[in-house]
């Protein structure tokens, strides 16, 4: 669907986004987003965000609020930020429309809830990214995270997933 060079570029972008999230590098992570952003954590694979409640359904403005809150130093559920490491794999380019790429991947994330329980939380699921090339650079405008246990009781999800 795309040549090797473009695939590597997409893959590198995804790894970078994962690293910024793992390291709670809030400004760097926020800077990846386009204005028409959607950061979405539904509760079911077939969820319709207009009728089904989502864990997270952030447009660009709300991503901004989320980051401001995390950076305030008083987002107590992330003070200090959870130590995290995630593995993103099974990357496939699903579709290409002009300079836009829809990409699917799987992920596994170890998150240490250091703020309270010190539980090692194990998160995982699939991700759909939509990337756009703007002035030669890849930018993020859609990230849908389908947690395997999204419809089960989960611990705090206030870190960058």
């Amino acid at each position, binding site marked *: 669907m795309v040549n090797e060079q473009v695939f590597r570029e997409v893959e590198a972008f995804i790894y970078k986004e994962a690293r910024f999230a793992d390291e709670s590098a809030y400004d760097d992570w926020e800077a990846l987003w386009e204005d028409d952003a959607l950061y979405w954590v539904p509760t079911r694979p077939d969820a319709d965000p207009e009728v089904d409640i989502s*864990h997270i*359904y952030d447009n660009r403005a709300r991503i901004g609020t989320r980051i401001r809150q995390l950076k305030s130093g008083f*987002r107590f559920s992330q003070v200090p930020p959870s130590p995290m490491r995630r593995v993103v794999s099974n990357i496939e380019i699903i579709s290409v429309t002009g300079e836009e790429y829809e990409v699917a991947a799987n992920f596994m994330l170890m998150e240490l809830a250091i703020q309270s329980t010190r539980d090692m939380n194990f998160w995982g699921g699939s991700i759909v990214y939509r990337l756009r090339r703007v002035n030669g650079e890849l930018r993020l405008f859609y990230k849908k995270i389908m947690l395997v246990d999204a419809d089960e009781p989960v611990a705090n999800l206030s870190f960058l997933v």
Partner: protein
Amino acid sequence: MTAKMDTVSYENLIHREKVHGSLYTDPAIFQAEMETIFHNGWVFVGHTSEVPKAGDFSRRQIGKQPVLITRDRDNNVNLLLNRCTHRGNLLCNRTNGNASTFTCPYHGWSFGVDGEMRGMPMLQAMGEGFDKAELGLAHVPRVGIHRGFIFASLASEGESFEEYLGDAKVLLDRSADLSPEGEVDLSAGWLKHRFKANWKMLPENNTDGYHVGSTHSSMLMATGSANSGAFNDEMGDPSVIRDWGGGHTELDFAPRYRMSGRPFQWFGGTRKSKLPKYMAAMEAAYGKEETEERVLAGPPHAIIFPNLFLAELNITYFYPVSTNEVIQYYTPLLLKGAPEVNKRAMRQTEGAMGPGSFLLPEDASMAERNQLGLEALTPEWMDLRRGLHREHIDEENGLLTSSVSDETTNRAFWSHYLTMMSKASSRAGSGC
């Protein structure tokens, strides 16, 4: 019987101005609470709008016990124990859906959504004179419904539903009265949030106005409302907390909304002109004056004891798991006949409620830290004296009322808890 039954003296653990830390950590107390409050008392279970059509079902728990809310062909809402009457298999393992029958996969017994037994493979072995009616699913003995909110008790006798709800039923009315059709709709699904904390921290926290300025300071900063004076009676917030009796409590923001003089302060301060269809439908249903009043005062922020939280445009309930674990559920309070409101209510709930929201993760962290702190056995007591000297009976409604940062609601919770638990414990004691 020679073994002495282990009875807890709740009177010694619960005082007006302080409660004992062991109430959150003692496994014997947790067991007694499950029995007395969650199995024998009345609890919130769900809403009729979750099973709108015949055959619809939704899985729930009453305390620890799995149940099904179903709607049968005669349009009755049933609460059935989710246990096959043969050898106990969990009959239905789906969260919700629609079914004509429930068939147990173990040996194939089948049941109607009304609970009646439909059939079983190789019936002859049951012997002559066997009557299928004997082996229908167990019904929850007592079910009470008000404005579609379903409550239940697993005890066949005891305080009536009307006595249990008491005056607090007007709080449910206030939620439903914001719909031009007078009905709420809880069909958006539930977010489920695990707290590693004792369940009592939830009802105690949910009408606690005092924690907001500190626990949720980051939200107030991020949204630019940090210095608004909200939740700070010393800065003039006229909001009040109330004891409705029966353990039901309220944090009433209406005085703050009224002071602003602007409608929809509970809805991001939206202007009426942004909700023209909603306003027209409300005025057609209730008249102009009444509509003005409702959109000014807004929905309640209140606890219906023990496990329902009317959180303005959200509904929340929980299940205790153990002394130090509880699962909290959230859904938007959608209003029938109000699509303009509902569209935004979804987004408002996502912002405020749930494990990924801007508010509840802090409440979860604080509850978990409380639980960890209580591992320290000194001091033994938790202090609850705030506002004792100034709480008073509000002449307008006869309810014990105090300022937004006081602990009147905590004391109301504990005084009802004490009544329930000590009654049950003295019954248990006299049986020995």
